[in-house]
C-alpha cells in the first residue's frame, strides 16, 4: 500500500522531495518490522508445527523404522513398495469414490440449502442453526450416533424398514455398501459448513442485478442460472478446492464407524487410514511417510489443475 502512496506524496511536495522520501523509507521499514513482529508468533507456530514436520516427513520417507525411533536410510525402497502395494491402490480407489460422491453432491446440496435459506422465510435462523449444528459437533460423536442408526440388529433405519416389511442391509458391515453409508454421513455433516460460506457469497451479490432482472421479467430459474450461479462461482471455486482437499484426508469417520476386525474395512479404508495403520499400528513409519508424500503430491497436482481450469468458469465480476 505504501508503495503506491509514496511517489504521489513526493511529487506533491517536490520541494522537500529528498527529505520526505527518505523519511518514507524509514517509515516503511519500521512498518514492515512491526508487521513481521506481529505475525511472528503465528509464523513460528506455522514453521514449527507445519512446515518443519513436512520437511521431516519427506526425509523419513527414505528411511525404515525400528522400534522406539531408531531408523536407517533405505533410499527409494519405500517408494518402490508404493508401486507394488495393492492395498494402497484399493485405498486410492476408495478415496476416489468418496471424493466423487461427497464433493459434487455436497456442494450441490449446500448451494440449494443456502439459496433457500437466503429467502425471506419464517424461522430461517432456526433452519440455519439446525444445518450448522453438525459442524460444531465432534466428528467422533457424529460417527457414534450414525453407527447406532446404521446398526443392522438394533438400528433405527432397519427398524423403520422392517415396519414396511423390508429386511434392511448391514449398512456398515457389508463391503458393498459400507463406503456409501459413510459417504452419506460425510455429506450430511458437511452441508452446514459449506452452506454458511455460500450464504455469505449470496449476500455479497448486489441487489441491483436482481432488480434489473425483475424489470426484464426473468423467472426465478433464469435468475438463478444467469445471475446467482455465475456471481457465486468464485465461492464455488473456493469451496470445491477446500472440500476436495478435505475429502482426500478423510479418516475419522472411517476410523470410528468401521471396526478393526470389520469385514468392510478393505473396501472403505482411505489413504489417510492406511497411513495411520502403517505409522501407528504396524510401526512402519518410513513407509507411512512415503504414503503421506504421495498424498501431498496428488493433492498438489489436482489443486493445480483446478487452478488452471478455473479460468474457464469462474467469474470475478
Amino acid at each position: 500500500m505504501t508503495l503506491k502512496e509514496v511517489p504521489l506524496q513526493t511529487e506533491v511536495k517536490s520541494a522537500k522531495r529528498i527529505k520526505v522520501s527518505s523519511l518514507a523509507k524509514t517509515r516503511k521499514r519500521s512498518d514492515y518490522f512491526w508487521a513481521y513482529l506481529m505475525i511472528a508468533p503465528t509464523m513460528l507456530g506455522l514453521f514449527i508445527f507445519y512446515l518443519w514436520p513436512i520437511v521431516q516427513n519427506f526425509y523419513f520417507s527414505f528411511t525404515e523404522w525400528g522400534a522406539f525411533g531408531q531408523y536407517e536410510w533405505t533410499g527409494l525402497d519405500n517408494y518402490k513398495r508404493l508401486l507394488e502395494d495393492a492395498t494402497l491402490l484399493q485405498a486410492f480407489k476408495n478415496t476416489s469414490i468418496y471424493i466423487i460422491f461427497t464433493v459434487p453432491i455436497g456442494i450441490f446440496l449446500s448451494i440449494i440449502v443456502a439459496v433457500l435459506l437466503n429467502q425471506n422465510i419464517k424461522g430461517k435462523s432456526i433452519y440455519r442453526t439446525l444445518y450448522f449444528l453438525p459442524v460444531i459437533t465432534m466428528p467422533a460423536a457424529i460417527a457414534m450416533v450414525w453407527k447406532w442408526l446404521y446398526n443392522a440388529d438394533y438400528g433405527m433405519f432397519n427398524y423403520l424398514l422392517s415396519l414396511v416389511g423390508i429386511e434392511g442391509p448391514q449398512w456398515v458391515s457389508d463391503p458393498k455398501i459400507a463406503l456409501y453409508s459413510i459417504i452419506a454421513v460425510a455429506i450430511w455433516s458437511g452441508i452446514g459448513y459449506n452452506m454458511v460460506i455460500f450464504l455469505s457469497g449470496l449476500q455479497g451479490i448486489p441487489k441491483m442485478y436482481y432488480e434489473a432482472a425483475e424489470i426484464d421479467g426473468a423467472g426465478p430459474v433464469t435468475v438463478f442460472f444467469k445471475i446467482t450461479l455465475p456471481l457465486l462461482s468464485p465461492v464455488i471455486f473456493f469451496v470445491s478446492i477446500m472440500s476436495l482437499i478435505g475429502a482426500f484426508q478423510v479418516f475419522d469417520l472411517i476410523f470410528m464407524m468401521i471396526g478393526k476386525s470389520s469385514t468392510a474395512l478393505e473396501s472403505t479404508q482411505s489413504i489417510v487410514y492406511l497411513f495411520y495403520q502403517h505409522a501407528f499400528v504396524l510401526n512402519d513409519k518410513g513407509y507411512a511417510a512415503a504414503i503421506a508424500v504421495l498424498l501431498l503430491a496428488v493433492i498438489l497436482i489436482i489443486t493445480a489443475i483446478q487452478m488452471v481450469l478455473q479460468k474457464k468458469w469462474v467469474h470475478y465480476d
Partner: protein
Amino acid sequence: MKKWIIMLLTVVLGVIGLSGCSDSDTASGGDKDGKVEITYGFWDKKQVPAIEEIIKLFNEKYPDIQVKTEITPYGQYFQKLETAATGGALPDVLWMNGAHVVQYAKGKVILPLSEMAEKDNYSLDNYPESLIDLYTVDGNIYGIPKDYDTTGLWYNKKIFDEAGVAYPDETWDWEKLKEAAKQLNDQEKGIWGYAALMGNQGGYYDFIWQNGGYIISEDGKSAGFDKPEAIEALEYNVSFIKEGLSPTQAQMTETAASELFSSGKIAMMFDGPWMVPEYKKNPDLDVAVVPQGKKRAVSIHGLSNVISSNTKHKEEAWKFVQFLGSKEAAEVFAKTGTVIPAFNGTQDAWKESVPNLNLQAFIDGAEYSVPLPSVENTGEIWQYETDVLKKAWSEEISIEEAAEELTKKANEALSK
C-alpha cells in the same frame, strides 16, 4: 516506549506459549517440599477404584511418594507409549502385556529388575511360573506380575433349561460343544448356540493348542498357522458360522458378541474373567471350564508392572512396583473382583468376591494353560491375524488360503 514493551511481551509470550507445552510433560514431578511425584500409566478404567485404594495404602507406608495415574484406553495405549518412549517421556511405572514386553525390553525403554529384586530380597516365587517366564527376557525379569487371566466357557442357564440341555462341565469336548450348540440354536427366537469369536486369546489359539498345534515355534522363527493341526482347529471354529450355529463375522462386528451374549441372544461363548464385572449383572449367566480337544489347553496371559528407563525416580518407582506386586495390593484387587491377582494364594478371595459365579473355572484353567506367545513382533503378528483371518471368518477365502497367507506374513515379521 510503551508500545515497544507491549509488542515485545506479545512476541515473547507467544513463543513461550508454544514451547511451554512440550516442557511440562517430560519432567515428572519436582522435589518440592521433599515429596516425589511418580506417574503410573495403565489402560483399564474398571480397575481405577482398586488402584486408587492401593495408592492410598501405599501412601500410608511412603507418604513422601505421590502417585499420579494416567489412563489411556487400550486401543491407543501402545501407540501412545511408542511415541512417548521415542521422546523419553514414558510414565515412571506402567502396565505391560506379554505381546509387547520383548520389544520394550530389547529396545531398552524399560528397566531390568533382577538386580534390584536380588538386592532387596524380593521373591519372585510368589507368582505363577508361566507369568514370570512371560516377563523374563534374556534371563532378566522386566515386569512384576499383577494379575492373570485364562478363558472360560460362559453360558446362559435360561437357554440351557429351555432347551433341556445339561450345563457344561469338565467332561465336555469339541464334539459335545458342537452337539450342544445345535440343540441350543433356535433361529425362530433369534438365539445362536455359540459365538465363534475371531479372537486369539479365548478363541482360535485355545483350539489350535487343544488340537496339538502351535502358534510360534520354540525357536521363535516360524509361525504354525498352516500346520494341519492348526488348519483343522480353525476349520472347527468357522464351522459354527457355516452351519448357522453362530452369528456371522459381520453380525459380530455390528454388535459385539459379548453384548449379544449378555442380552440373551447367544447360549455359549468363550470369554475371560475381565468380563466378570459385566456378566455378573445378569443372573442367568454362569461359567465353566473350556471344553477339551485332543488335549486340555487354554491360553493364559497376565499383566505386569514395569519401570521405564527414562524415570528420574528409579528408587521410588521400584518401591511402588514392589508394593503393587505385594500380597496387600493383590488382596485389594481380589476383593473388588476385577481381575485374578497374580500373587499366589490370593485367588480364593477373588473367587469369593462373586459367589454366584463358578469362578473356580478360571483358576482350574491355569493348571493346563499355555502362555500367549511373545516375541519381538507380536503386536504386528496380531494385526496380521485380524487382517487375514477375518476374510476366512466371513467366508471370503478358504481356511487354507488364509492360513497360508497369515503364515507367510507372520514369518516375514519374525525374520525381521
